[in-house]
């Protein structure tokens, strides 16, 4: 295979991997603090993207057509509103079920995902149809042989990387991060140390959902199309990525995200059968990986409490 083509596939794969990693980070954060799975995560991402899209339309309507201002507006609204939505979900759906069986939390958030998805489909104007998401980034491109690199792809990749680094710094280098890690390690002790448990949970859910909103806008800018169903698959992929990486571990989530993207790209390019089988291949490998390492590649170091 010629190098240009290989480079093209690698850039495509990196792009997917970045989006998956961003979604997976959310799953892993929630699991870290509360040992729950918030399955509506993918749909929160979708709602965030629609919020951003509406902002773009709104800014256009009041006559602001500078792409940079629009981009900032889209990001601020999408991220801000989803942070709030994430906290609301935690407050009214996840925390009340804290002592219920974990299956119930999983189900309640699965159902919430359906509610969000259907609500956009039914109540967003013309919501059942795909929407054209604007290109707000410069579209200059560099071509080397068969390799084509666009400025917007580079910006998206760098943006995604910055967000991941930002989350990492926040978790490992700040007082808030320390509190989140404390709650993740031992809720009771953290409370004794004067940490406001509920507040930390809400902030963590806000943080994870904000990252998802960023991933959603990134997805919209990359594909230039958004639809009400986009969150479902992204959510499942993000979840699988977090699981193969090992729940509760941010590096695991990032690793898992890139592994999944690599599997998809590999499935599309290198395998003998049609490229349409790439998702079948990726999910089959995920199931096999889970069977092999039931708690993920970077496993939680806990023994079971009885």
């Amino acid at each position, binding site marked *: 295979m*010629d190098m240009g*083509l290989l480079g*093209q*596939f690698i850039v*495509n794969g990196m792009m*997917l991997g970045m989006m998956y990693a961003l979604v997976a980070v959310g799953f892993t954060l929630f699991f870290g603090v509360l040992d729950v799975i918030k399955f509506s995560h993918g749909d929160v991402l979708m709602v965030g993207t629609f919020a951003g899209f509406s902002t773009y339309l709104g800014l256009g309507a009041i006559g602001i057509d500078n792409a940079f201002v629009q981009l900032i507006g889209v990001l601020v609204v999408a991220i801000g509103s989803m942070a709030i939505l994430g906290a609301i979900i935690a407050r009214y759906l996840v925390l009340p079920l804290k002592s219920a069986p974990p299956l119930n939390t999983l189900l309640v958030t699965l159902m919430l995902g359906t509610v969000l998805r259907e609500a956009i489909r039914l109540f967003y104007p013309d919501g*059942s*149809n*795909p929407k*054209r998401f604007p290109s707000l980034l410069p579209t200059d*491109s560099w*071509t080397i042989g*068969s390799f*084509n690199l*666009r400025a917007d*792809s580079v910006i998206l990749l760098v943006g995604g990387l910055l967000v991941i680094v930002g989350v990492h710094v926040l978790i490992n280098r700040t007082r808030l991060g320390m509190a989140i890690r404390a709650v993740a390690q031992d809720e009771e002790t953290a409370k004794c140390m004067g940490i406001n448990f509920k507040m930390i949970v809400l902030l963590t859910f806000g943080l994870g959902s904000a990252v998802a909103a960023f991933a959603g806008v990134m997805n919209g800018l*990359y*594909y*230039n*199309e958004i639809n009400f169903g*986009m969150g479902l*698959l992204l959510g499942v992929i993000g979840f699988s990525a977090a699981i193969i990486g090992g729940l509760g571990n941010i590096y695991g989530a990032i690793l898992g995200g890139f592994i999944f993207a690599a599997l998809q*790209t590999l499935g*599309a*390019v290198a395998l003998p059968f*049609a*490229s*349409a089988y*790439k998702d079948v291949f990726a999910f089959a490998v995920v199931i096999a990986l889970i069977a092999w390492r039931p708690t993920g590649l970077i496993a939680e170091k806990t023994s079971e409490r009885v």
Partner: protein
Amino acid sequence: MGILRKTTAPLLTLAITAALGTGVANAKDTVKVAFIGPLTGGVSAVGVGGRNSAELAVQLRNADPNAKYEYELVTQDSECKPNVGVQIATKIAADRSIIGLVGHYCSAVAMGAVDIYHRFNLPMSVWGAVLPEITYANDYKEIHRVNGTMINQNEVAAKFMTDQGYKTWVIIHDTTDYGKGHNKYFSEYLTANGGEILADFGVPADQQDFTAELTKAKQLNPDVIYFGGLTPLGVRIRAQMDKLGIESQFQGVSGIKSDSFIDGTGELAEGVVSFLEGAPLEKLPGGQYFSEKYKAAGFTESEEAYGPFAFSAMNLILDGIEEVGPNRKALTEYLGNIQDHDSVVGKISFDDHGQNTVAAITPYVIQDGKWVVWEDSEYADGTRKLSGL
């Protein structure tokens, strides 16, 4: 007093409607007819246009004092998904009060549903689905079609594109019967016209990311990328071609000839070509009449490419019921004998398989955000050029 008014008002309306209702019932019996099309989802614009057109036919008939019956239109949404389509087809066919049906834009749905219409003896006419097998792969006398098939469309498309000077193609098609049909017939006629197919990719109808397929296509550097499928996928592929810097000409089929394709692709739509059976509306015999009535009825959505066909199909069914009465078997027989029947899309004649013969195929190109008939476009007179020429 307030309470009294509240209770009397509905009572009064009830009395009035009852009186009116019986009055109408005395004059005319109500007969139900049905319409099926994709009213939600990626191709809903075409579906809604068809629904409006069928509704227009019913409205005009009900306004006609000479009509023997009062018609009621039942509409159902197939969502362009075969399983949903089969469910609602069963629902409509199982309802004995429905006498005739105008149905299907999506070929994949129609293929699943024709067996059901036959099982329940429901006479129907297709208004937009173009797969030949819908009428030709069975001997069901209930199934008819007023629009043409994709065979002629691809014959003309292959000849047209090779005449422009294009040599090499990459084909991307969805893997429903619809996309596969386009692939089959286009490949056949393209090879006959001397074009070369470098590769073909079958993709599921809800795929999001085409970078893998398109990167492979890019390496082959074809003159044209032919896409056999419907609008939503077409939009994604066109947009991602640009992402990867592919300069090839984009050629679509009748499935992307809708305004939503232009809305979805924006500036990238410029110069995209597509083919549609039937002459353009303004050149049709009754096109003027149909356009005027459609506007007068106050529909907010466009009638889209297949509106006139839906209108004609519904009129045909209504004509039949007027003639032979509200009876499924009699209507089937009536439709079987249709020859040179006047309609806004020209004379309708059904062959043994219930297929209308529509000879004319019109090439279209997108120019300045509008579908323009090729002959009238700046591309035809050389002012603008298609990609790669």
